[in-house]
């Protein structure tokens, strides 16, 4: 039983002004609205980490070769995933290895030892190295070359946990790219892949319907039931991706596997949804759905939602969707009272929306999630404004609202159908309270949810 006096002792909390951690969009700069110095980390943890994403490759075993400091987070994250502990091992790096310079030897020996003692032979092993090994120029070609020779039946992926050395890719971007590295070229079939999304794309969305009607087999990275299904992604002619962070993966697959990359990002405004579907139709010779009919349905659904929520304060965060400003634009232009968007940077896809909102809705607040003041600013919007309807876990936590749409990275919602479902989820969220405290603290929602 949790003792309230132990988790909430009487401590004086410094009072700070929101200046620097919040700004109205009218005065914000693109793409970095905030100066981020020392960084805060929110307890809303539903987004995925590099410990979780390799779990999407069936029969893949993760082996982290890092210091205890870095291992503590990933091993416990993996442990929280159902069956995660059995798919995760580690080799602990110490100062002894740094001094002796035997980084390669200890990694080869450590990974071999784990493989040899696993109850079942994995089809794939993703090894992870940390900043320190790369700072000391570990020879990974030697490491993985040796391991591939020693275990020819196992696909090895070189994974990276190198946040200090992210001059080219962020850990998430690099992580997504590496997740596709065990896919090899296969004889071509009329098939396409969805890469590298963490949630399966909604099979009811019009994109899936279009592809199926066009005779395509779909390999959805996030929904591969077996390792063979994962490997079958090598037979596809194109990689469809929805998130900017998956771009290096798609470009890498173009280079390695000669598969066409097709970027049709998540969007909420009709013109963009239509344009992306048209792009897919043109690229893959598909028939377009009746977009006018879809848009009419969306309009009607938005109107019904507006009748329900009225002038309720609404907030959105960047973990719910990579397009928080596009979503804010749709809702604001339909009369909803979106007053705050939680984000730290504005992604390129949201650039037009940023400037549109800056011009037409300059009072919309942008609020940083990691600025140091965020931990000290009161989470009292529900007391100030009454009910706050939040889209995303961070928006719910920071506004202290139990009325929230629990989605992470669009949760597979795509296109008009995705928008219709989001409207429906928003309506549900408005009517039914959720156990926000419990839900938002679960890491990698989707592994559990």
């Amino acid at each position, binding site marked *: 039983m949790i003792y309230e006096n132990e988790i909430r002792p009487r401590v004086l909390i410094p009072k700070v002004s929101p200046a620097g951690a919040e700004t109205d969009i009218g005065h914000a700069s693109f793409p970095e609205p905030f100066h981020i110095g020392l960084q805060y980390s929110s*307890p809303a943890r539903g987004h995925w980490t590099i410990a979780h994403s390799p779990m999407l490759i069936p029969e893949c075993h993760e082996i982290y070769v890092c*210091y205890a*400091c870095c291992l503590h987070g990933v091993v416990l994250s993996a442990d929280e995933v159902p069956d995660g502990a059995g798919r995760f091992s580690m080799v602990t790096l110490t*100062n*002894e290895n740094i001094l002796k310079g035997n980084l390669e030897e200890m990694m080869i*020996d450590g990974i071999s030892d784990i493989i040899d003692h696993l109850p079942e032979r994995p089809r794939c092993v993703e090894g992870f190295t940390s*900043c320190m090994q790369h700072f000391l120029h570990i020879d990974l070609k030697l490491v993985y070359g040796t391991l591939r020779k020693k275990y020819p039946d196992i696909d090895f992926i070189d994974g990276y946990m190198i946040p*200090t050395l992210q001059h080219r890719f962020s850990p998430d971007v690099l992580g997504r790219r590496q997740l596709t590295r065990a896919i090899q070229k296969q004889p071509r079939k009329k098939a396409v892949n969805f890469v590298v999304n963490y949630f399966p794309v909604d099979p009811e969305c019009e994109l899936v319907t279009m592809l199926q009607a066009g005779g395509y087999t779909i390999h959805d990275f996030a929904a591969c039931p077996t390792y063979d299904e994962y490997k079958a992604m090598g037979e596809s002619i194109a990689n469809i991706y929805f998130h900017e962070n998956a771009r290096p993966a798609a470009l890498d697959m173009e280079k390695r596997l000669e598969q066409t990359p097709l970027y049709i990002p998540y969007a909420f405004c009709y013109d963009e949804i239509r344009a992306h579907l048209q792009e897919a139709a043109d690229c893959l010779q598909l028939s377009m759905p009746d977009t006018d009919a879809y848009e009419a349905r969306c309009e009607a659904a938005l109107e019904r939602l507006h009748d329900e929520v009225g002038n309720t304060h609404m907030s959105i965060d960047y973990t719910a969707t990579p397009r928080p400003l596009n979503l804010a634009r749709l809702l604001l232009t339909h009369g909803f009272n979106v007053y705050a968007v939680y984000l730290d940077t504005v992604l390129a896809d949201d650039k037009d929306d940023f400037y549109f909102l800056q011009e037409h809705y300059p009072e919309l607040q942008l609020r940083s999630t990691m600025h140091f003041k965020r931990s000290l600013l009161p989470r009292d919007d529900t007391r100030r404004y009454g009910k706050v309807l939040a889209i995303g876990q961070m928006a719910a936590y920071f506004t202290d609202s139990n009325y929230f749409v629990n989605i992470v990275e669009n949760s597979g919602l795509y296109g008009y159908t995705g928008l219709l479902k989001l409207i429906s989820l928003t309506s549900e969220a408005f009517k039914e309270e959720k156990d926000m405290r419990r839900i938002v603290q679960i890491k990698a929602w989707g592994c559990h949810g």
Partner: protein
Amino acid sequence: MKQAQQVLSTYAVDVFGIASALYELGGLIIMHDASGCNSTYNTHDEPRWYDLPAMVYISGLNEADTIYGNDQRLIDNIAEVVDAGKPTFIAIGGSPMPNAIGTDYKAIAQMASRRTGIPAFGFRTDGIHSYLPGAGAAFLTYAKEFLQAPQKKPQQPARRVNLLGLTPLDFSVVGNATTLKNLITENGFILQSSWAMGESPEGLAQAANADVNAVVSATGFYLAQYMQEAYGIPYVCGLPMGKKGTAGWLQALRDGDTSYLTGLTGKEKPARLNRALTKLDAWKVEQVYDDTPCDVLLINGEPLQLLSMRQFLADEYGLHDVRLLCPLADAPEPLTTQIETACSEEAIRRECRKARRIIADPIYARLLPGEEKKFLSFPHEAYSGRHYRDDLPLFVGPDARKWLDEKGF
């Protein structure tokens, strides 16, 4: 292979121990790292994070600053937070990367202190060693800065008691800290201060007025030795577990009996934190007990929980064939003379095979698939984080056997 861990976890590291120890004291605590450390700490090891705001931040170390040794950005960012948040002190430690390039935390602390005008502590940390020396150093350093001179000398029988070494890493938030405090106040003592859960900085500053220090985890041991040397305050190491154990602990506090449980004389040389920080380079892989079977094996990273539970099993259950295994090689040496240390998965597995019953964090049960029934779950927040918090017992006080009985021990 000594460093390969197929199923086990790792203990919270030094820099997390610092944050946990100082969490409630109004300071600015910085983990010098790129990212990840803060979310690891606050997600898994810090149960107060959701409810109790604190100025615990990551520095956002980047590659260029690492290579060029640029600390100025860090100092500027610290000054920005001090200006807005008005912390009463600054504490900084870090992860493996800054350690490897020889980051001088004490120098950074000096620069930060000069710039901001508030005390600043730099901790030699590397993200490799455990929370024991980390939290230990934090308590000690904080005390050296903020303890006020005592107004009276320690008396016997003792009445005023400090609790040293209270953090959620060892006690979680399930009532163990509250029970310890209640035991003090309900048995004729005055709780002078508790380091550092549910205590104000003002209360901690008066700690030197205590008659005795109750060291309830190894993280409080360094401070206890310091306060004995500086103020002549005796210390008692151990936890009250069970009726007899609680009575014995209370009596030891009254008497200021340093030999209680540990056999220490109080005249030992102060345990050196820096020595603790050099120890994990040597992995303990050797067999530690002979091959004969034993009745109970206790595995725990915190030595005083091991010693106290052994006494408790003897008192309450008449069990004497109990072996103690500490997987942390950097625990304070004076507390581990009756404890064996084994760090590698294989060495720990070997010891588990020999035991009929094992009381340990549930993660250790994975060492022997098919034999999980011989493991009794005793989650340790510093090891498995929040994962098994619901199963974490109230393990101190006269009724401590309740949780073991409920588990059918």
